């Protein structure tokens, strides 16, 4: 997560004067069920080709779909996390021919999706992104294009593997509320954290468990019109989301500024070339002839069931951040701690008496995620207290913390082992006086030239640290320098 916010400036910084981006995202989340959405075949990543199949997900003649109850539960959990209304839903057939779709129709939801009308509040950008719907559908198989370049356009032939065919997906569709690439990345990151938190998905973009399509258009800054959009597919990492959106938005602006207009189409992101390309032309095939799947019946979640799901929802990222803020954390630090999944440790340390600001500082800057779960909150709190009392410098505290993770000792023992003792003020003042007297010119300038003070302050602190082998408290040195210069 980046700390840049101010979306309008972001959009305006990236585009020529007077334009802004209008972005809607569709996130496909693969659900972490044991079996597929309608077929009792295994749902797992990385198996040998066509191993995770069953007559149902191969679409063999005569087979029939039956809904996986776990998939509906996960989908409802995602819907509730997105603040959606969970409602009666109907599965519909989306008809089009494609070899990696075994029935040549996809079972999806059309006019009656499971989840509607939700929102996601972005913790850093501070904006609210409205979610139009989050519906349930089946994934397609995987086609590998075999040919000289491996690219779709000059393939000699294709090979189809149906392991992924029928894997349950939730497709989360936003309104066009996103105004820039950073906001888009933050939204994706937040949704990913949510679906992982509720246990519905592993959220791994690199394995395709979370895939993003972006609908991009531009408009004159401040206007509320919606212009022709292009759907960008194949954006497989957070980095490419930002790059693809920026590229596409600039392309639109260039078209408008040269008197042309973009056409509504599907485009593919080419990561290597850093550009989008027009997709395969599918004449007429956008007539999907949706109709309610006669092989399936409606799913009508009862209020009791929804309440039960809601009551058993694990804490969501937003709730976890809020708990940290209530305990004294700043919002940016809270976001980072939750992202690093260290929030329960941090809360326990604060509970044990650790000063919130220092605990957050350690958790965001000094603590490796790995092994952190073994830390004793009371030891951690003791460390923070020692630091606050001046018994350890911040540098020493960082080193002690690292050793606490690796060997589990108390901070007092580790500090004693290394002979760490924060110098008392008198001792430090004596050392500083020695340095001042051996650098009279620098001291002269430090006192009399305010514009040089900042640079020279660094010089004196550095000299003190050198003399004390880093054991001095930098903050205290600064205080002493100021006192001496003003006296």
């Amino acid at each position, binding site marked *: 997560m980046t700390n840049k916010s101010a979306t309008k400036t972001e959009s305006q910084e990236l585009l020529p004067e007077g334009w802004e981006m209008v972005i809607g995202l569709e996130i496909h989340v693969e659900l972490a069920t044991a079996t597929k959405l309608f077929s009792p075949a295994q749902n797992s990543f990385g198996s040998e080709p066509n191993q995770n*199949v069953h007559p149902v997900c191969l679409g063999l003649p005569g087979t029939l779909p039956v809904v996986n109850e776990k998939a509906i539960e996960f989908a409802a959990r995602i819907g509730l996390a997105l603040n959606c209304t969970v409602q009666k839903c109907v599965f519909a057939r989306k008809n089009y021919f494609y070899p990696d779709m075994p029935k040549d129709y996809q079972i999806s939801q059309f006019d009656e999706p499971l989840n509607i009308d939700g929102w996601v509040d972005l913790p850093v950008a501070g904006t609210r992104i409205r979610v139009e719907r989050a519906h349930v559908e089946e994934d397609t198989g995987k086609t590998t294009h075999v040919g000289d370049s491996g690219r779709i356009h000059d393939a000699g032939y294709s090979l189809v593997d149906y392991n992924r065919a029928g894997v349950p997906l939730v497709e989360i569709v936003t309104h066009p509320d996103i105004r820039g690439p950073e906001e888009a990345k933050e939204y994706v990151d937040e949704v990913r954290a949510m679906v992982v938190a509720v246990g519905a998905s592993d959220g791994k973009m690199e394995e395709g468990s979370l895939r993003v399509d972006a609908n991009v258009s531009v408009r004159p800054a401040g206007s509320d019109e919606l212009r022709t959009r292009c759907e960008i597919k194949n954006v497989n990492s957070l980095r490419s989301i930002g790059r693809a959106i920026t590229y596409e938005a600039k392309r639109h602006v260039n078209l408008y500024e040269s008197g042309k207009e973009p056409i509504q189409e599907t485009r593919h992101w080419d990561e290597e070339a850093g550009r989008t390309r027009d997709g395969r032309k599918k004449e007429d095939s956008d007539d999907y002839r949706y109709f309610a799947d006669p092989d399936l*019946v409606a799913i009508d979640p009862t209020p009791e069931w929804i309440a039960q799901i809601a009551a058993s929802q694990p804490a969501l990222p937003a709730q976890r951040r809020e708990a940290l803020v209530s305990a004294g954390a700043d919002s940016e630090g809270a976001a980072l701690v939750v992202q690093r999944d260290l929030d329960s440790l941090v809360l326990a340390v604060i509970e044990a008496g650790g000063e919130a600001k220092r605990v957050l500082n350690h958790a965001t800057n000094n603590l490796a995620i790995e092994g952190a779960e073994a830390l004793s909150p009371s030891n951690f709190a003791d460390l923070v207290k020692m630091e606050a009392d001046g018994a350890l410098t911040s540098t020493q505290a960082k080193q002690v913390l690292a050793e606490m993770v690796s060997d589990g000792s108390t901070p007092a023992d580790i500090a004693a082992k290394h002979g760490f003792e924060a110098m008392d003020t008198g001792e430090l003042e004596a050392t500083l006086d020695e340095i001042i007297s051996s650098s009279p010119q620098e001291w002269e300038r430090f006192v009399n030239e305010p514009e040089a003070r900042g640079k020279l302050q660094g010089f004196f602190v550095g000299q003190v640290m050198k003399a004390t082998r880093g054991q001095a408290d930098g903050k205290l040195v600064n205080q002493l320098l100021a006192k001496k210069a003003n006296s």
Partner: protein
Amino acid sequence: MVDDAAHELDRDEVAKVAGLAMLELTDEELDTFTPQLGAILAHAQDMENLDLADVAPTHHPYPLVNVMRPDVVAEDAGGPELRDAVLAAAPDVEDNRFKVPPALGGD
């Protein structure tokens, strides 16, 4: 297209629908099918006599809801045996996968 059952089906529309359905019709077939389909669709006109405004559609003759199965892998799912049987029945395979002509090409 217009939302009107009275609209008369023409040859071009039949050809277009054939394309959607991945069928190729010869000129003779177009000549035969166009009036035949037109005659059948003309019967849909009968329904115009009915007041259907307040009638809900029936998707299923026997109303059921919430039919679901537990998330358990079936005994007859997966494994090399089923894979081999299925691949053996396929028109063309390579490397345990179904082989098809390229997505784009020749046009």
